[in-house]
């Protein structure tokens, strides 16, 4: 009902047939949605879909009530199992199933970035492959990468990681290694090393941002980002005096986790509810956020609430700094908030919501580049306009 068109009365009649009758947010997807054939992707059903990427983030960093978490995890695994079965029934069954499985294994580790998990999974594909030529290997990889991408369409770093690796593979093969086996082993070796790159990337980003944190400053952070955590950790280790205002980050409440970690480092931390950002923006010197993805325009896609904070900061002339690794650069160009595929996450309000009331469950928003001041990446400090340049160089 809450679509763009003003004629929501007409739409209501159409959509009433699609939406299920009972409570929207708290129940797992009803059996009717899973039985849709040919669809291993758990996200296609608009209303019921749960973004696996944000599920994982919640599981790693969120603070949720245990039975709600059990419910949603059950729902997620049920979708995955169904997805796995669907793929098994199709052709190339053994390969595709193991890719997603492998990916899931890597993904579960809290410290590992999504893109790294994806690349490791693709490396496993190479290892298990029986291809004898580069071309065959590339085709297999392409299939595996496509199935990974379609398994969770909402994860930008997954897509970007797969694309980056595919690009690297095609470029490497173009360098005419005479020996297929050595090329193959080199690909596997680089893929495994990518985990180190990702870890080093966070260190580089932390180093670059140190100069921007001066003594006596107040930093506002939103939710829990591992990169921002690294930045603040390094600043604390360098004995800088600063304090952090941390938003709660509903619905995951991942900000609580960040506050815990900062308190362990003896950094003065103050928790805010999300609505208190404008109230406290006066005393803030800079805003630091992470990013789920950096898009071609130079804007970022991040946890819901980031756009709001950037707008407030911009109107009060406070700089907004983004810390993001370079493998999160994606070839997307959203023109507005709804331009991206939906990534939904169920929200636990603590009380049951009547079925007639809809809930905005999107897990992420898009912040346009004009509200961002600088991006700290492992490629260096960049202004938003440099991002599109980098992407063009890579893909064109």
């Amino acid at each position, binding site marked *: 009902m809450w679509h763009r068109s003003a004629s929501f009365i007409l739409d209501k009649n159409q959509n009433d047939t699609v939406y299920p009758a009972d409570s929207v947010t708290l129940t797992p997807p009803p059996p009717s949605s899973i039985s849709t054939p040919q669809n291993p992707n758990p996200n296609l059903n608009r209303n019921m879909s749960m973004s696996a990427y944000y599920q994982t983030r919640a599981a790693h960093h969120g603070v949720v009530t245990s039975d709600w978490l059990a419910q949603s995890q059950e729902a997620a695994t049920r979708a995955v199992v169904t997805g796995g079965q669907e793929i098994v029934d199709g052709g190339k069954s053994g390969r595709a199933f193991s890719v997603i499985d492998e990916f899931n294994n890597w993904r579960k580790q809290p410290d590992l970035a999504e893109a790294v998990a994806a690349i490791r999974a693709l490396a496993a594909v190479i290892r298990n492959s029986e291809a004898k030529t580069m071309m065959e290997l590339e085709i297999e990889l392409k299939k595996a990468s496509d199935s990974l991408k379609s398994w969770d369409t909402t994860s930008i770093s997954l897509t970007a990681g797969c694309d980056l690796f595919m690009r690297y593979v095609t470029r490497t093969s173009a*360098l005419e290694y*005479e020996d297929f086996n050595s090329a193959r082993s080199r690909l596997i070796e680089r893929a495994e090393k990518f985990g180190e790159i990702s870890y080093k990337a966070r260190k580089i980003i932390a180093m670059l941002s140190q100069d921007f944190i001066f003594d006596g400053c107040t930093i506002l952070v939103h939710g829990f980002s591992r990169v921002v955590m690294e930045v603040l950790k390094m600043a604390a280790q360098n004995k800088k005096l600063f304090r952090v205002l941390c938003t709660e980050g509903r619905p995951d409440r991942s900000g609580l986790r960040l506050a815990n970690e900062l308190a362990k480092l003896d950094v003065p931390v103050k928790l805010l509810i999300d609505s208190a950002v404008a109230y406290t923006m006066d005393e803030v010197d800079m805003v630091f956020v992470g990013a789920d993805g950096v898009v071609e325009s130079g804007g970022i896609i991040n946890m819901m609430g980031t756009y709001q904070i950037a707008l407030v900061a911009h109107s009060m002339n406070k700089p907004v700094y983004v810390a993001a690794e370079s*493998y999160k650069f994606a070839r997307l160009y959203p023109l507005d908030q709804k331009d991206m595929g939906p990534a939904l996450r169920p929200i636990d309000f603590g009380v049951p919501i009547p079925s007639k009331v809809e809930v905005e469950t999107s897990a992420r928003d898009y912040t346009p580049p004009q509200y961002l001041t600088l991006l700290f990446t492992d*490629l260096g400090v960049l202004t938003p306009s440099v991002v599109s340049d980098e992407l063009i*160089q890579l893909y064109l």
Partner: protein
Amino acid sequence: MTQIEPQNQLTLDLSRKHKIEGSQATARQTAELLRSVISQQRVPYTNQAGALIDAVKAIGEQLIAANPVELAVGNIVRRVLHIIREEDLSLTTAAIGGLNLSAVSDDENDDDRDGDSTLSAAAVAAAARSTLRPPSLQTLLEDTPVSAAVPQTSSSGGDSEGKSKSADKSSRSRKLKHDVIEAVNELIQDIVTCHEQIAEQAVEHIHQNEVILTLGSSRTVLEFLFAAKEKKRSFRVFVAEGAPRYQGHLLAKELVARGLQTTLITDSAVFAMISRVNMVIVGAHAVMANGGVIAPVGMNLVALAAQKHAVPFVVLAGSHKLCPLYPHNPEVLLNELRSPSELLDFGEFSDCMDFGSGSGSPLLHVVNPAFDYVPPKLVSLFITDAGGHNPSYMYRLIADYYSADDLVVQRRATAGN
């Protein structure tokens, strides 16, 4: 030793801060000093580029420390370092191209780029070239240059060409220094002629019957306006005097001497007059990597007034003013406080500013900052000797002129480039 003296002299001049006026003179002297350092430096047989780079970094560190606010010094040091790396790279690729049919050995590790199989010579050159540029998405997955791990395939025979190799090397050693010095000469030439190159573009920007506003006095702006006058454009100039040094007075005098209709106003009157103005043209002390401008004090208020009235704010800057650093606290770190005597007469105010009287701390403080920081969003256009650009395009020029490794100019303890 002779090479220490000019360096010490320059360091002293820089630290005195008023011995050398202006970034152009500073840049030129720095470049000339570095050129003499390079020509006098003895380079070892192998890894000559590394030796040159180390020598330049050692001197550069001292020069930058002498006057951190004068960014042109650091810029020129980094330009020279980039030149050394580039010349070395082009020599290497030429050498690889020349060794087309002969065997390639892998013990000659002059720089990190070792010889490679002929098939992928071009690829090696491309990869090596890409290591000069700042790290990019393309090279993300390759952490060492491709050449390092390329298997030495069939064409790598033995090192039978040892003799031709060494003959090659000695000619290379002479060539590197020679090329670098030539390139530094070009750099000096660019610095000296930057005003002409910028002034050439004046005609495109200044049209008939325009009113131009400027603040203080900048030689680049002067040449720019003269060039437009030469091409028979008729326009008027408003000059804001630029307190407390009042250099706008000098500029007004020179403009009148050349036949331009000039109006002199105080800095405070800028906001009142800005609505009558078509364009603001100013010079800069330095341009930062994000497009922000370090300019004489008062510039920020002109920029704000121009934005409020939608007047284009054009900054003229020679390429030696382009700095690859991002300003994280420019009002404090990139500013210097000058003497209060420029504002107040010590004679009249001696009782207020006297540290000896009363509680030992005077009630009257005088703050006289020399520079202002203008954020990039207030600047409409940069005109450099490389053409006219957007503030968000500055990073491209920086990528062309500087290498990522040189951002922090520090002599490294370990050997290597």
